[in-house]
């Protein structure tokens, strides 16, 4: 199979265009007041194509993608569950789409009611005291969380606390966020069982500790069993606990970060609350806080006076860490999360954690029965788990990346590869609750088949994929000979 879709500029012909989409020409006189030295001299070189050419081109491009709607997508740590169509349809009602961000509150009571209720529901499922919805992605929520921790210490006259403790298995965003907030990162090891090394934590805390960032269940796919002790140690040292909500899907309705002792949390609404990933965004990274951090939440928040909803801004939250987006963050994403939570209701949300965990443990059991090695065989899987292919790499010279690429040929998106870095040759597999046993069984069959190929004709695996629009790409060339924008090549 060879599918190459031309770059849109290669369809371009001077003078062609979707002119039906353009406003009528008001004439050059309309521009009489614009000084020539501020005017553009040449038109921007955008493509000139018909509407059909554009529709066909972008539809064809879409067909080169794997997606949840078309493929099983067990990408660990990303929670690629079904995005219900209703969430999209009801977030895109014409009145919601047309509402200007600075429109008065009187013309947005319906919209604000959804956001207010979303805040309340998120407080309930996380056990936190306050929620702000404006951060626009998980990493943006992380930023808000650590910025609030800093603001808290500063407000207490304890400005020297600038160390953020991070377990070595953490997502890269955690240390990157700490740096963005002007903090110093202290990494601590995890034990072979997957739990944080408590003794190392005791040694790491001190008068400079601002806080600790934890993912629980951790990136290793296991629950941090001594979380209460971790909380005690950090709190006694004067630090606060940050909960990275990357894996919230695992425990939704089973245990709440607020009850575990966390002071601040970000939620990836695009994971746990099923808003679409959109090819890499938009996400939404709502933050929740305990009582100590309430005064520092980013603005705007949604408040309620009697039956009226209104924005809360600087004058309502004077100690706020401030504004993180031009307006109200990814409002349309928030509406999708709202519809999702209302569709599931209290019982449905509790089932999320249960069935995500059931699917992960079942898939882990089936894969280990088929001969694959679990990274933490003595532990329960959370909503995801790690398989290590170290043995295959050593004995057969077939790596986790080779398995990942070959899975594409079998019609499955690859799991997360080579993360966490702690486990060599790893696949981090997260099936999510919306997949059926049939799909999970088919995935096991594919993995077993690839294992057989690796033993009998390894070249078939190490040169995979074979059925995708392209073969493996030369990343080294991409980085050495940067080609980041299209340029017309000379015609022969």
């Amino acid at each position, binding site marked *: 199979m060879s599918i190459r879709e031309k770059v849109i500029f290669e369809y371009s012909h001077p003078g062609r265009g979707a002119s039906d989409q353009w406003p009528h020409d008001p004439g050059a006189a309309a521009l009489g007041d614009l000084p020539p030295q501020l005017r553009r001299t040449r038109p921007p070189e955008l493509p000139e194509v018909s509407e059909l050419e554009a529709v066909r081109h972008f539809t064809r491009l879409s067909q080169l993608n794997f997606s949840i709607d078309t493929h099983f997508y067990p990408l660990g740590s990303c929670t690629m569950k079904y995005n219900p169509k209703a969430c999209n349809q009801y977030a895109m009602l014409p009145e919601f789409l047309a509402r200007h961000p600075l429109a008065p509150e009187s013309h947005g009571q319906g919209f604000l009611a959804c956001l207010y209720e979303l805040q309340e529901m998120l407080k309930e499922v996380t056990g936190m005291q306050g929620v702000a919805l404006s951060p626009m992605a998980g990493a943006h929520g992380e930023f808000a969380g650590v910025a609030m921790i800093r603001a808290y210490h500063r407000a207490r006259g304890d400005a020297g606390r600038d160390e953020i403790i991070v377990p070595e298995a953490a997502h890269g965003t955690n240390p990157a966020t700490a740096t963005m907030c002007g903090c110093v990162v202290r990494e601590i090891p995890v034990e072979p069982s997957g739990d944080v090394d408590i003794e190392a934590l005791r040694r790491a805390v001190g008068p400079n500790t601002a806080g600790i960032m934890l993912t629980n269940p951790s990136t290793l796919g296991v629950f941090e069993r001594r979380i209460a002790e971790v909380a005690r140690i950090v709190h006694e040292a004067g630090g606060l606990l940050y909960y990275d909500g990357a894996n919230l899907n695992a425990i939704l309705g089973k245990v709440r970060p607020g009850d575990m002792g966390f002071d601040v949390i970000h939620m990836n609404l695009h994971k746990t609350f099923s808003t679409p990933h959109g090819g890499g965004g938009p996400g939404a990274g709502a933050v929740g806080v305990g009582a100590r951090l309430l005064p520092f939440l980013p603005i705007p928040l949604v408040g309620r006076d009697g039956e009226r909803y209104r924005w809360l801004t600087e004058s309502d939250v004077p100690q706020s860490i401030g504004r993180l987006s031009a307006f109200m963050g990814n409002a349309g994403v928030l509406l999708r999360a709202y519809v999702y939570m209302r569709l599931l209701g209290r019982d449905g949300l509790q089932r999320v954690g249960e069935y995500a965990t059931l699917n992960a443990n079942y898939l882990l059991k089936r894969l280990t029965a088929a001969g694959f090695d679990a990274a933490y065989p003595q532990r329960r899987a959370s909503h995801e788990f790690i398989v290590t292919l170290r043995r295959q790499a050593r004995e057969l010279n077939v790596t986790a990346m080779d398995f990942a690429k070959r899975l594409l040929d079998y019609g499955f998106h690859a799991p997360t590869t*080579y993360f966490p870095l702690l486990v060599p040759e790893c696949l981090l597999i997260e099936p999510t609750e919306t997949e059926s046993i049939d799909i999970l069984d088919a995935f096991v069959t594919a993995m077993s088949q690839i294992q057989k190929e690796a033993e009998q004709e390894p070249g078939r695996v190490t040169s995979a994929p074979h059925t995708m629009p392209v073969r493996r790409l030369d*990343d*080294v060339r*991409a*980085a*050495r000979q940067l080609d980041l924008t299209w340029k017309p090549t000379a015609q022969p």
Partner: protein
Amino acid sequence: MSNVPADLKYTKSHEWLRTLADGTLEIGITDHAQHALGDLVFVEVPEAGRAVKAGEACAVVESVKAASDVYAPLDGQITAGNPRLSGEPETVNAEPYGEGWLMRLRPAPGALAAAQLLSAAEYQQVLDAEGG
């Protein structure tokens, strides 16, 4: 097995040093280091004239999957960064101890004596320990 030339000095963080005729030091990353990083796609070297302290990050080597700082082994002043590497980072992979040098440095008075450098045999022990 990595190549560890006997006539060079080394650091635990996988830099090598060669003393040039004029007393300046030529510094690069070892064969082991370039192999661990993989195909380099970008190298940033310090500008001549910059004063550096021992342990200060003063160059960056990047592959597709990893990025690493290169540290000054001792106090001194940079006399040259290897100009070739901006266009041909792969030189470090091909000739880590030759044309792939990263920078030259004039040691501060007494810095060379104070620096804790390893002989080839000692560096080989570091590699053996890491490998085990």
